[in-house]
């Protein structure tokens, strides 16, 4: 499972007149940051440390459902066995075998050690799931200033990459672009058909930075890595 969303952009045949809407310049009030590395501390200074600027915690529904099911299954089996034997029936084979194995195998037995190792790994996974934030595919957005309290917004990285790709394609000279949005970095690969690639790169840097903080309103605009190359055609 890839944690990076990849988008391949090839120009379609229709051409649009004029610059794309919304990417000609940053919206008023957006601090312009043409530097390719808007550092974390710089973006933190620009805004008050609102709780909404962090990625929301995942509810961990799947992990909880699986753990709850397994616990319920184990408890159910033991409960059934307890009631079954108390009602005067003979214990089932699985129970007699299990309790016999547990009583006779020493703890340096391969099966016991394997089971213990699996249990330790599983416990570690559960602990990590409980303590980490999750929602790794989402990027937190800045909520409108003066908006309602308690509002949080996230955009998924695949969608962020789509919007940034559109912004990239609005730069004159770009003929194709690939944009990947990681959690901490935006990777742009653009092909340049005309103009000086260095100029295009400079404009891409500014455009992508503006789109990330202005149009996308990311709370922490990731750093950028921009590669340009001449279009082979």
């Amino acid at each position, binding site marked *: 499972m890839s944690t990076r969303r990849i988008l391949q*952009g*090839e*120009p*379609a045949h*229709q*051409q*649009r007149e004029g610059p794309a*809407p919304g990417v000609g310049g940053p919206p008023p009030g957006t601090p312009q940051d043409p530097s390719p590395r808007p550092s974390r501390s710089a973006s933190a200074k620009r805004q008050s440390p609102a709780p909404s600027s962090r990625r*929301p915690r*995942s509810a961990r529904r799947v*992990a909880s*459902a699986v*753990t*709850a*099911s397994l*616990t*319920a299954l184990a*408890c*159910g089996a*033991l*409960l059934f066995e*307890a*009631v079954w034997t108390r009602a005067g029936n003979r214990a089932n084979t699985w129970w007699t075998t299990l*309790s016999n194995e547990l*009583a006779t*195998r*020493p*703890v*340096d*037995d391969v099966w016991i050690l394997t089971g*213990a*190792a*699996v*249990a*330790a790994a*599983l*416990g570690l996974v*559960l*602990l990590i*799931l*409980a303590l980490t934030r999750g929602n790794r595919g989402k990027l937190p*957005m800045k*909520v409108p200033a003066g908006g*309602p*309290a*308690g*509002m*949080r*917004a*996230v*955009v*998924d990285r*695949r969608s962020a990459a*789509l*919007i940034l790709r*559109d912004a990239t*394609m*609005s730069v004159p000279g770009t003929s194709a672009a690939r944009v990947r949005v990681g959690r901490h970095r935006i990777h742009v690969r653009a092909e340049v058909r005309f103009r000086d690639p260095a100029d295009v790169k400079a404009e891409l840097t500014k455009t992508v930075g503006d789109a990330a903080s*202005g149009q996308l*309103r990311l709370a922490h605009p990731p750093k950028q890595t921009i590669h340009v190359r001449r279009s082979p055609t």
Partner: protein
Amino acid sequence: MMRTTINRVLLALTGIIVLGGGLLVLAGGTAIYRHWNLTPPGGWPLTSEHDALVPHGDQTRWAGQNWWWPATIAALATLLLLALAWLLAQTARGRRHRALPLPGSPPSAARIDDTVVSDALTDDLRNLSGVLHARATLSGPRSHAEARIDLTLDPDGDPAPVLDSVAMATQRAGQAIRQDVLPTHINLAVARHASRRAT
């Protein structure tokens, strides 16, 4: 976000128990105490690699006591019910009515269904320009509703102005149920589209 907290606390608790048990057995099975010249405290289980996990003596130690079976069955039943409740909490989204305070009437005079509010909010959001799909759901305890909004934008949609309009829409929804602050979680996505060159 009550459920998030509960889920994470229970997951951490289960993780600690399972990890601790595994490590205890691993420590005994690999004779780590002897290799590292450690002396475990008195009564520590599994100090030698020849110990059995649950010897026959332990298995039947309390079986003769008259409290053992009722206690075991009660404990297992409680644990089973708790696990089932935890499992159901992951899906349960029952219809909930909220008291709708009206001026000049007792607080319980009018009630409004959650789905009414969330449907109205969804309609509001779908009519915003640049929005392709929208779905709003309301959850949370009676007097502390929370909204969750999933939005998909048009290929041409611009997140920033849409977010401003969503803020206004949720403010209206909050006013409708007389809640000053309606905590809202917005999940934004953009419809997939081919890239276009704009030169």
